[in-house]
């Protein structure tokens, strides 16, 4: 009896995986029947990327309780690192291997940048992270816009000025070309890859939350002074939360990059950061499942609403408000809990928990 109520977190996670798996299956079936519109099937990988972005941002904002306004910056770091690795490695190894390495490199690069930002900023109390991440998002975009990388027989060349100043010899090729970004990437990201990466992200975040580390992180969010008073090292756990969040944004970026043959830094601007923030606010802060659903729904919706032309934004706003109410209203929350409990009871009993 008691143990069952303690397994609550675990069951809640299971439901989230279930929803993702079911949605994947349904879309595969629809697509198999040829009923998926072109524009929508082109959106599948970006939708997966935005879901990962939302889950990862929720770790910073909803679980750690720090505001980040530059999450797209980490996405762009992952995207450029991943694309760069892919372009360099495509010719020398099988596609799946270079893709895996590209995803890992994008994740790692964003994690390192997250640490570099977090170490000085997370020591401070107050909303400094919001300000610094806002600046970071803009700086990284401008930096990447004027970043040139080339390769020739003598190795890699970097420049922040223009392509000619790379001084490449006749064997040389430009890999990152300033504002024109990276071209010639293999478009190797698939919906199945996105689905698997969503599951991995969910496993990491949900397992982290329901562990000693996650509880320490949430205790800082709820009451910093009390957290310190029970022996939680504030800086350490803020850093863990923030850098895992940055790493997963890098993963999302690396995957996103492999959906296109051209990648430019402009895509990862302030608007993208705010869009992801909207997803997690609508889905409920700290509510991982809500983030998944909101990110998916609010990315698909504009596509589905094309037919409404003029009324598109109006319907979008109405849906936004309804979703907010659904997540925030106490009555609806109670109603939802009741149904989740009903739906999951059978499962738990079956296991003899």
């Amino acid at each position, binding site marked *: 009896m008691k143990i069952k109520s*303690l397994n609550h977190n675990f069951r809640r996670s299971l439901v989230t995986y279930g929803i993702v798996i079911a949605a994947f299956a349904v879309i595969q079936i629809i697509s198999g029947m040829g009923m998926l519109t072109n524009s929508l099937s082109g959106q599948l990988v970006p939708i997966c990327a935005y879901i990962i972005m939302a889950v990862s941002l929720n770790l910073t904002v909803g679980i750690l309780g720090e505001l980040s306004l530059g999450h797209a910056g980490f996405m762009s770091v992952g995207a450029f690192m991943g694309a760069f690795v892919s372009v360099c490695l495509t010719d020398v190894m099988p596609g799946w291997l270079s893709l895996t390495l590209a995803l890992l490199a994008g994740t790692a690069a964003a994690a390192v940048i997250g640490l570099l930002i977090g170490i000085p900023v997370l020591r401070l109390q107050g909303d400094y992270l919001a300000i610094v991440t806002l600046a970071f998002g803009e700086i990284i975009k401008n930096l990447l816009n004027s970043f040139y990388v080339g390769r020739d027989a003598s190795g890699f060349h970097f420049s922040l000025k223009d392509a000619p100043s790379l001084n490449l010899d006749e064997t040389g090729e430009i890999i990152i070309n300033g504002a024109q970004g990276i071209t010639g990437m293999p478009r190797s990201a698939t919906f199945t890859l996105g689905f698997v990466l969503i599951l991995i992200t969910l496993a990491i975040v949900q397992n982290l939350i329901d*562990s*000693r580390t996650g509880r320490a992180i*949430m205790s800082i969010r709820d009451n910093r002074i009390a957290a310190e*008073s*029970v022996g939680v090292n504030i800086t350490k756990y803020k850093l863990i939360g923030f850098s895992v969040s940055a790493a997963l944004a890098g993963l999302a970026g690396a995957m996103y990059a492999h959906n296109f043959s051209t990648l430019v830094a402009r895509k990862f601007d302030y608007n993208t950061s705010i869009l992801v923030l909207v997803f997690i606010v609508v889905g409920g802060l700290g509510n991982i499942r809500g983030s998944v659903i909101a990110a998916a729904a609010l990315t698909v919706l504009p596509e589905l609403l094309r037919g409404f032309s003029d009324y598109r934004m109006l319907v979008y706003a109405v849906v936004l408000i309804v979703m907010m109410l659904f997540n925030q209203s106490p009555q609806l929350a109670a109603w939802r809990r009741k149904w989740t409990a009903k739906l999951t009871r059978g499962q738990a009993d079956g296991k003899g928990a």
Partner: protein
Amino acid sequence: MALLEVRNLGITFGGLHAVEKFSVSVEKGQLYGLIGPNGAGKTTVFNLLTGVYQPTEGEIVLDGKSIVGQKPAVINKAGIARTFQNIRLFKDMTVLDNVKVALHNQVKYSALTGVLRLPAYFKQERVMNEKALSLLKIFDLEGEAAQMASSLPYGKQRKLEIARALATGPKLLLLDEPAAGMNPNETAELMEIVRLVRDRFGIAILLIEHDMSFVMGLCERIVVLDYGRVIAEGDPETVRTDPKVIAAYLGGEA
């Protein structure tokens, strides 16, 4: 040597001597009271002992080691746990998780162990659950384990804070007005619990309380603060009849 030795502790806030030349010595297993009128500096003493404030002067020695200048988390690991006058629970976490957070340095496993759900995760979580539930049981809170901390009534929130502090395995427990906002029944029950905690865990308890029957009935020794200074110290009888203490309280009420 006493468990806690405080000598000439002092702090000033922009010219205000909130605490001045405060000395106290708490023995292992002792129940010690810290009283005084509103604004006397009692909570400030707790904040100094736990590293929330840095003293401008004085020494704090716990178990033979100086802890002045250490961070609150380090002081907690050294063996001091506390509750807060204005309750500070982790309100969006369950009652059980509030206690499990406090087991942070008692039962450990790495972040990676947790994410990968390695066998150590399940083993240590089971240990944590058992420890947390047995603490909640002492405070008659095990029935509310799965509830959000913020949904508890006031008196139970105060008890949960004590359970949480105990979970850190302290040698010295500081309670800041533990009976505030409790009805007489709850207060009587709390007295029993405080005694029981001291006996079962063998820890020393230093408590601030305005309810005089609570302090006099419970504490073996009492120190009285007024305007940041110690005006009396001794057993309850001595303190109760001390003219300076009576004057401070009457003056405070006027």
